[in-house]
């Protein structure tokens, strides 16, 4: 029905975080694990970057519309006094130009920790959580037949956590349902489940109503899995195993 002239197509994600997740992310209310998934998705998806920009603009407007809560009388004076201790926001043009050596370019204010090796394949938000763990090879731990993990955010008492999963080709993650929300983003390869096909950058969201069995195709798959509650495996044997592995 749509016979518009086609426009250039950038790699298009087919599965995005839902608008609630984006809203919570933009408003700073999304938990750390899901935020990690959303921030990684933004690396790949310019459309969602736009959406988050829009939602942040909404936040800015809301800030403007708040009734002001007056600060202490001397607040501005104290702030101005503190400014004196800060460097000028920009280097003022060097007045008597030290004619000689053209200074080497100033190092960027906060050079990100340099991540090399395997970690460099992952988007910055993930690298940020990996860098204290490793450079070079990641500390993968076996989790089951064909499945390895690196825990990025340790499980809390309510079952909220984030981990990288590496799954061998033609391996299925055991069928499970969810006790909370699950956010997964594909960082390499891809998987299919009852909901669809997920490839690089795609986000799969599942809640209590969803039971699925993600299957990996011919390429190895790495995904980032964030959950806000424990997974519930259909098979009793897997359940026992998972409770040992704290999955």
């Amino acid at each position, binding site marked *: 029905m749509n016979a*518009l*002239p086609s426009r250039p197509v950038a790699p298009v994600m087919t599965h995005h975080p839902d608008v609630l997740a984006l809203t919570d992310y933009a408003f700073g209310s999304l938990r750390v694990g899901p935020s990690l998934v959303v921030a990684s998705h933004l690396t790949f998806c*310019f459309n969602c970057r736009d959406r988050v920009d829009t939602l942040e603009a909404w*936040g800015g407007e809301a800030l403007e519309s708040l009734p002001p*809560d007056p600060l202490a009388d001397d607040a501005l004076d104290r702030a101005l006094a503190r*400014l004196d201790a800060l460097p000028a926001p920009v280097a003022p043009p060097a007045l008597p130009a030290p004619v000689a050596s053209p200074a080497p370019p100033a190092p960027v204010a906060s050079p990100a920790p340099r991540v090399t090796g395997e970690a460099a394949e992952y988007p*910055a938000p993930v690298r940020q959580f990996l860098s204290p763990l490793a450079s070079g090879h990641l500390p993968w731990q076996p989790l089951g037949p064909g499945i390895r993990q690196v825990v990025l955010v340790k499980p809390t008492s309510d079952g909220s956590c984030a981990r990288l999963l590496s799954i061998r080709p033609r391996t299925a993650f055991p069928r499970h349902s969810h006790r909370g929300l699950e956010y997964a983003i594909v960082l390499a390869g891809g998987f299919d489940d009852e909901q669809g096909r997920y490839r690089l950058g795609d986000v799969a969201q599942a809640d209590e109503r969803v039971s699925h069995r993600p299957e990996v195709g011919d390429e190895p798959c790495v995904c980032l899995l964030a959950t806000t509650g424990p997974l519930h495996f259909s098979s009793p044997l897997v359940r026992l195993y998972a409770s040992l592995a704290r999955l």
Partner: protein
Amino acid sequence: MADPAWSRVACTVAFPALCSGCLSWHQGTARPVRSGHGALCPCSDARLIRKAAPPFRVSLSWSAFRVPLAPVLPAGQRGVGGVMTALPPAPALADHDACIQAIALHGDREAFAALFRHFAPRVKAYLRRHGAPEAQAEELAQETLLAVWRKAAQFDPARAGASTWIFTIARNLRIDQMRKEGRPALDPEDPLLVPPPPSGADSTVEAHEREEHLQKGLATLPAEQATVLQLAFYEDLSHTSIAERLNLPLGTVKSRLRLALAKMRDHVSKEPS
């Protein structure tokens, strides 16, 4: 789209316009609405909302969206249809953008004081609503404005307006305060970043337009949806806590949050009757 000939007619959107369906900005080729008043998003078929302009700000009645299209060309000459002309530019907002730029350019303390007077009490109010104790909110409001001073050179008015930028700083400071694990954030310098397509449909929008547009959207939410949004946003309540606070089922809270966003889209995507 009963009429196949109609579906092949295209028009050009001459300015960035917000799509009411996918919440992103579009410019360039689109499909006109049958009535000739407006255009549809090429990806979601939802209506494109005009950028904020004077009539839009006065009233959200439908007349605001009746933008005459040039006569629609017959099918077969598609791709060169009507061109929506841009309305006169919006009047300047209070020039907080300029204040930030003055700080970046010559460390202007007057400009800083002006920003401080305007924003610090609002940032404090925002933090208080998130449950920060009085003293901490006051301190974080100070920190936020000091960060504005330090980071002024990074401010890009084409990307976000002053209030949005300051909001994100306050939000980030608040998260940093709360979390020990760190705050996952997009890195625009990430070598893996997939850039938007070079030109055309998804162009960056001017910040003011976006903000003015959203301001209006926010003001038109029904109270029950606005309440849920405010609790989720200002008070940082989880959906479950909101449900408890309002004595509502969780599903209702979630659907109201969804509706709060959908409402804004709905508002402008209905055909004028």
